[in-house]
Structures are given as structure tokens and as C-alpha cells.
């Protein structure tokens, strides 16, 4: 059997780039500039090769374990693009906090590779490997502030819980293998068409694998790790987790949600059960996330709860895909929009020179309007977008998932989500109010906008506003991307 490697080009480019970057940084140990430059080159090359091949015929490779299709290519491009933004946007922070090591870039690249392969996996075992490739760098990065006990705590917590949940995923996989005779998603799907419905073993396995990914995207009730990890990890890493890890994990969760062929009437009961699972997870994430968010005083911690609500919104989009797979576009639009605004928020957070390791408190943003109108404007753009206000991509992101969920018949859940939007809007607008209405608190942190970070934030804000007014620019391209089941 010959293996045609051409469809794999973007992933191979990334792999090669990782190897080159690592070697280069070994050769020139005394400075991190080569690592940084090669990381950017690698990510740019991956982005370009993924986008240029996006219209290629979708194929599966390695015995159906790996899918190279428009969806996986666009995702890889998104992940590399986010990688570029974070590398450029947070290098100032890393230098200032004396965290600027080449290892940071290696770990980031490996993490992106893991996420990119995870999305492409069509086999549970392959997915497990990709998941670990993505997670191990994430654990390490969370503990990147080596001398900071909170960062260490975050890493340990994330590692132990993540490891345990990886075991749960494997357990689920073995159940599914026992029931269906395969770990390949295509084969499981084929099995579902002839099996005449699930057996007990299948249902247990299904719930276990889905629960383990609900943990990865921190949907309630599997969200407890998130606030601590978010708060303890260095700001750029928190941003990377919020965007890259979430995107990768969530898109694989969409695949897991489509294990059997739902249109088969024999699976109607199982479909109803799964809908209930996702409905509960979505509702709980929305309610818990938004209710707790308004009590937070630390902005990083607030963003952790915010991302729990965003997992809830993503699950709304997912619920719509169960019966209408074309609604995958709602998930994609949401991921792109959410990633853009999160990138903006976390790069902005990295600009604050808040003393100590506590991160940015609400008090640090008081009176920012007087001190820096430009930063206030940028903050307002991202926070308004998070709240789903019009003229920002946040509105259209919500628009899509609401519409997707309503097409799935989840009207009550959408009403609940709408009410949670109001609650969380309070939390998002409060920092803006403090910036505009309050005089600067004497203890407020200094905000230091450096050149490189500025470029990234301004770009992200421009994208948020542009896509918010001209969403067609994005939707037109995401619309035809099919979810191959």
C-alpha cells in the first residue's frame, strides 16, 4: 500500500517546522530570537499551506484514522493564525516577566500540532494520542512561571485531572471497541447503520468519551479545574488554552457527538438521550458560568467563568448539528469569533503590570479612560463583543448558535441562554464602566502598551469590528464546509 502524503502537507509542514525550530534553538542557545522567528515562519507556512489546499478533495489516510478535509484544514489554519497572534502579542510580556525561553515556543508549536491532529482524527486511539500531544505541553505551559506557587498549582491540578480524564476517555474507548469492534469513527458509524440501536456497552462508552471532552472544554459540570488553572497560568498560556485548546477539543467533541448515524430511526432513543446530555451541560455551563462571573474581582478568573459560558454557547451550536450537520458552520463561526476576542482580551491583560502574581483585578482598570483612551476603546470593543453587542463579531457568533439551536428545536434552552446573556453582560460591562466612570484607584496597575502587542490587539479589534459589520466575509467561506461523518 502506498501512502499519498500530498494531502498531509500542512501537517507535515508543521512537524518539519517544529523539528527545525528545536534544532535551531539548540544551535543558538544564548538567544531566543531564532526560536521566535522560526516559530513564526513555521506557523505562517502552515497557515498558508492549509489555506491554499482548502478546496482539495477530502480524503482519509492511515486506514481511515486521519481526515484531511476542508474542515480540518480551516481549523489548522485558524490554530496557526492564533498561534501567530499569541507569539507576536505576548513576547513583550514574556520578556518583562523573564519567562522568555525557547521552550515556550517549542511547547506552543507541539500544542498546535496536537490540536490540529486531534481535529483531524477519525479514530479514538489516534485521537487519544493527539489529545495527549496537545495536553502535555498545555500542562507544562501552565506551570511556566516556575517560581510562582500558583502557577505550579495550576500545572499540577491541570495535569492530574487531565491525566485522569484521559484514562476515562480510554475506558470509554474500550467500551466502544467492545460493543462495535472498532475504534474507527467511520467503522463505528457503519456499524450503527446495521446494529439496530445501541447496546448498554455502547451507551456507557459513548457517555464516557463525551464526558471526557466536556471536561476538556470545561463545560459544566466538569468545569471546576478551569478557574484555578486559568488564574494560576501565565496570561499568554491562559489565552492559548482559551483559544487553541478549546477550539481543538470542541471540534473533536462535535465528532464524538456524531458517533452513530442519527438519521437512522433505531437510534432515535439514543439521540434523545444525547440531546439531554448536551442540553444539561449547555444549560448548566451557561447558568453557572454567568452567575459566578458577576461575582469575580479578578479579570483572569472572570474570563475563566466567561469561557465556561462560551462552552455553553458552543454546545448550543452543537445541539443544532445533531439533526442538521450543516449547522457545523455555527460552531466554526463561534470559534473564530470567540478566539479573536479572547486573543484580544488576553493580550490586553498581558499589558497590565499588575504587581505580584495575582493578575489583573477590577481595581486595576479604574480610570483607564483618563490614562489611555486607546486601550479603553480596545477593551470596550472586546468586552462588548463578548457580551454579544451588535456591530461586533460576538453578536453574529451568538446569532448563529442561537439559530442553530432553534433549528434543533431547543427553544427553551435558547431562552435560558438569552437570559444568561443579560446576566453576563453585566459582568462584561462592569470593567468598561470602571474604566470610564471611575477615577484611577491609587493602587491601580500601570498599563504598558508596547509596539508588538499593540499591532496584535489592534488587528484583533479591527477583525472583531469588521466581521461584526460585514459577517459575510467570513460566513461565505465557512458555509460550504461540510462535516464529514
Amino acid at each position, binding site marked *: 500500500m502506498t501512502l499519498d502524503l500530498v494531502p498531509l502537507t500542512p501537517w507535515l509542514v508543521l512537524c518539519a517546522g517544529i523539528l527545525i525550530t528545536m534544532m535551531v534553538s539548540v544551535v543558538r542557545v544564548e538567544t531566543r530570537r531564532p526560536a521566535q522567528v522560526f516559530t513564526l515562519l513555521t506557523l505562517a507556512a502552515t497557515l498558508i499551506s492549509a489555506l491554499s489546499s482548502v478546496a482539495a478533495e477530502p480524503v482519509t489516510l492511515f486506514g481511515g484514522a486521519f481526515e484531511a478535509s476542508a474542515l480540518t484544514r480551516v481549523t489548522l489554519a485558524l490554530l496557526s493564525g492564533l498561534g501567530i497572534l499569541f507569539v507576536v502579542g505576548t513576547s513583550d510580556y514574556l520578556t518583562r516577566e523573564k519567562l522568555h525561553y525557547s521552550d515556550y515556543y517549542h511547547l506552543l508549536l507541539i500544542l498546535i500540532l496536537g490540536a490540529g491532529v486531534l481535529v483531524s482524527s477519525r479514530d479514538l486511539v489516534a485521537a487519544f494520542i493527539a489529545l495527549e500531544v496537545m495536553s502535555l505541553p498545555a500542562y507544562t505551559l501552565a506551570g511556566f512561571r516556575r517560581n510562582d506557587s500558583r502557577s505550579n498549582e495550576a500545572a499540577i491540578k491541570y495535569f492530574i485531572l487531565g491525566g485522569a480524564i484521559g484514562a476515562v476517555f480510554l475506558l470509554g474507548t474500550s467500551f466502544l471497541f467492545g460493543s462495535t469492534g472498532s475504534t474507527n469513527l467511520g467503522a463505528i458509524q457503519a456499524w450503527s447503520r446495521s446494529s439496530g440501536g445501541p447496546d448498554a456497552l455502547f451507551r456507557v462508552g459513548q457517555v464516557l468519551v463525551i464526558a471526557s471532552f466536556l471536561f476538556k472544554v470545561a463545560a459544566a459540570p466538569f468545569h471546576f479545574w478551569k478557574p484555578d488553572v486559568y488564574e494560576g497560568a501565565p496570561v499568554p498560556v491562559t489565552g492559548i488554552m482559551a483559544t487553541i485548546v478549546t477550539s481543538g477539543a470542541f471540534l473533536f467533541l462535535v465528532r464524538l457527538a456524531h458517533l452513530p448515524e442519527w438519521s437512522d430511526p433505531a437510534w432515535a432513543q439514543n439521540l434523545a438521550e444525547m440531546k439531554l446530555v448536551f442540553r444539561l451541560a449547555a444549560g448548566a455551563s451557561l447558568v453557572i458560568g454567568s452567575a459566578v462571573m458577576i461575582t469575580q474581582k479578578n479579570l483572569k478568573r472572570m474570563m475563566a467563568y466567561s469561557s465556561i459560558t462560551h462552552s455553553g454557547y458552543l454546545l448550543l451550536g452543537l445541539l443544532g448539528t445533531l439533526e442538521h450537520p450543516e449547522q457545523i458552520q455555527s460552531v466554526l463561526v463561534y470559534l473564530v469569533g470567540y478566539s479573536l476576542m479572547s486573543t484580544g482580551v488576553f493580550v490586553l491583560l498581558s499589558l497590565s503590570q499588575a504587581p505580584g502574581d495575582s493578575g489583573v483585578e477590577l481595581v486595576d482598570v479604574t480610570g483607564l*479612560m483618563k490614562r489611555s483612551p486607546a486601550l479603553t476603546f480596545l477593551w470596550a470593543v472586546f468586552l*462588548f463583543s463578548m457580551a454579544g*453587542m*451588535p*456591530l461586533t463579531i460576538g*453578536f453574529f457568533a451568538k*446569532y448563529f448558535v*442561537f*439559530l442553530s439551536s*432553534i*433549528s434543533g428545536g431547543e*427553544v427553551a434552552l*435558547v*431562552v435560558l441562554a*438569552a*437570559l444568561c*446573556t*443579560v446576566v453576563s*453582560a*453585566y459582568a462584561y*460591562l*462592569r470593567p468598561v*464602566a470602571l474604566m*470610564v*466612570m471611575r477615577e484611577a484607584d491609587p493602587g491601580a496597575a500601570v498599563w504598558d502598551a508596547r509596539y508588538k502587542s499593540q499591532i496584535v490587539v489592534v488587528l484583533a479589534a479591527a477583525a472583531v469590528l469588521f466581521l461584526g459589520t460585514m*459577517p*459575510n466575509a467570513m*460566513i*461565505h467561506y465557512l*458555509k460550504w464546509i461540510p462535516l464529514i461523518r
Partner: protein
Amino acid sequence: MESSSSLSFLLTVPLMGALISLLVPKASQRLYAIFGSVLFLGLTVYETASLLFCKSAEEAARLAIEHRLDWVPDLGLSLSLRLDSVSVWFVVLNALVAVLAFSTRGIWYRKSPGLFTGLGFFLLFALNAAFLSNDLIAFYLAYESVFIPMIFMVGIWGVRQKAASVFRFFLMSFFGSILMLVSIFYLVREGAVSGAGYSSHLSDLIRVASGLGPERSAWVFLGFFLAFAIKVPLVPFHGWLKDVYTNAPVPATIWMSAILSKLGVFGMIRFVVPMFQGVILEHQAVLLSLAAISVVYAAFLAIRSSSPKTLLAYSSISHLGFVMMGVFSMKQAGASAAILLSAGHTLASGLLFFLLAQVEERQEGLDLNTAHGLAGRYPVLFTTMFLAVLASVSLPGTMNFAGEFLVLLEAYPSSALWTAVAGAGVVLGAVYMLRFYQQLGLGSPGSSGNGASGSAEAAGTGDLSGLDLILVIGLMGMILAGGFQTAIFLKGN
């Protein structure tokens, strides 16, 4: 009237105004804002004159223009603009209110004035976009965009507990409007399921809503109703109003009471009534009772209130109760009367808030709540204020009288009881408005003024004069002209 240009200028000119305000030097911001808004008002009236002043329904229907621009074709979203005999009034009033709001003086022209005029012009744009939208998603976007300048205006130039009041204002309104969004989505999805594809154009959604069946359409209606009832507001939903009206800077208060509240009225007339005729007719008694209770309850609150600003805030609710009564009468003439009365309320309440600000400005350091006897000091100002008070209590000859009278006339066949209750509100209105004037204007001046009189004179702010006077007289003229020329409002729509 060229169809596309006359519509798009209503949106592009204010946006340009907002952008240019970034370039205007700080000292000339007020002049620029007044000049720009007057120019825009003139342009608006000139371009829409034929529609504005035509007297027959047929002619109005012929002159109505609709302009459809694909916005997100992949979703069936269009920027559908429609200028007809309903929206034209709101568009003109919007331009007029901007002139009034920009003519105020205060801290907003001293502390970052560029931001103020920029936000003001953006508000003008967003409101025009809302009043012209014929596509519900586009309307929702414009409707929500209105919050953004409002939040900043209150946040930056407001007083006292501005943060709390602006949050209450925003969150309550957002609560309503997000439910409206869900309702819109539901209708859009129903339309898509029936095979027509995604569309949120009003004409498509009217068709979808009419096929929903009574129970489902009642729920969908509730989403829309809550949004607009909070915006207007009707009585159980008025909790946000008092604090934000009193803590906001004067121009923001003028904007909120004179034109933002009309968003709710407009939304009801343009969208809710055509979509949910069945539901409204079925629950007409409840809706009319809500409106009538608003009239009376808010009137009592106004009588009881001690501060002039609070009194005006409550009187706003009371008058808008009449407007909603006209809307819920479900008759063509009732809706026309509601528009007439809306226009009257916009002018009278805008004028009163404006004049109150003039008083406040001349009496810095004076507590308005205990001030009295100011009429002797500022005879011209208080004469005009008295006329505005008379308009507000619907003296025959003003458009407010014509509006209230016609509203009650149209609502009577639907519910004699609630018409009678609301009718009592007319009398109560006279009680609190005259008391308002008596308290502030009449009596012996000075006792609590403590030295303020001297400083005010020294500051050189004498009686009402110059541009302010011309503006006030112009508005008074409109109130009277509207009272005698009701035909242009009542041509049917």
C-alpha cells in the same frame, strides 16, 4: 425624490458627522454639533417634505420608498430600509431632537467634547437606522446599537449613582430585547422550515407569524411585547427610568425621553401590530389596561415626586401610556393618533427638559427641589416654559390635545372602562404639571437661593435669548402647527 439617495443620506450623513467630530477642535465642538444637526434637520425635512406634508393615504402610499440592499446574502439578511408615512415622522423628530440635545450647555462640552458630539451623531445614525429598518434582524442591531452611545454618555457625564442607574437601564432593556431576538429567531426558523429559506424581512415574518396558530404566536408576541414595553415603558416595567433620567446628563435625558422611548412605540406600530393582530385583539383588554394603568399610576408618582426632574420623568411614562393606548386600539386612526401624540410628546418633553436645563445652568449651586419664584428673574424663559407646560397638559390647540383626544376616541369602543381610567389621567396631568410650574416659577424668590442669584448674573447667563430662544419658539410653533394641521398625521398608514 430619488429613492436610494434620499434613504442612504439619512444614515451616511450622521456617520460622517460622527467621524468629522473627531477632527473638530475642542472649542468649536458645540458650534459644529449645532450647525451639523441643524443642517441635517434641514436636509431631512427637505428630502422628505413631499411625504411629510401630503394629505391623502393614497399619495403617501405612492411616495413610500423601500430600498433593499443585500447584507449577508448567505443568511438571507438584508438591509431593508423603508421610508413611509410612519417612519418619516420618527426620522424627522430624531433630527429635531438632536438639534435640541446639542444646543444644551454643560460639562459635556468641557470634558472631552469631541467624544460627546461623536456619540451624539452616532446615536442619530443608530436611531435613524432603527426607524428605517424593514428587516427585523437589522432593526434589532440598530435597536441595540442605540445603547452604546447612551451607556457612555451617562457613564462619562452623568451624576450621582450613574453607574448603578445606567446598569439598571441597560440590563432591563437588554433583558427585553434579547427575548425579542429569540422571538425573531423563532420566526426566521419557522420561515425556513416552511421552505421559504432564511429571511428576516418584515413582509416574510408577517406571513410566518400569521401561520403560527394562537398559542405559539402568543409566546412569540410576548418576546416582542416585553422588549417594547420595557423600552416605552409601560408601568410594571418602568423601574429603570427614574434614576437614569435624573442622573444622566441633560442631552442624554432629552434623547431618552424624547426619542428613545419612541423606539418602543415605533416597534409596536411597525412590527408587532402587523405581525400579531390576532394575539393583540384577543388580549386587547389586558393591553389597554396596562396602558391605562401606566397613565394613572405614573401620574400619581409624578404628583408625589418632589424633584422637577423626577416629575418630568414620570410624566413621560404617563403620556406614553396614552400613546400605547392608541396603538392597542388596533385601528388605523388609533395608530395615527399615537404617532401624532408621540410627536407632541417628543416636542413637549424635549422642550421641558431643555428649559429645565436652562434653569439649572443659570442657577448653579441651587437645589432645584427647593427653588421657587424664578419666573420673575427669567420672564422669557418661564413664559416659554409655561407654554410647554400647557402643551404637556394637552391644552386644545396643541398637537398633544389632538393626539390624546383621538386616542381616547379610538380606544373607547374597545374598552369603555379603561378609556375612562385613562381619561382621568388627563386631569391628573394638569395637577402635576401646573404644580411643577407653580413650584419652580411662582412664589417669592430667593429664600434658598443663597447668593446664587449674584453669581448667575455675574456669569453672564441672563434670560433666554439668541439661538436658544429661536429654537424654543420654533418648537412651540411646531406644537401649535401640529395641533391645527392634524390632517398630515392622520392620512392613514
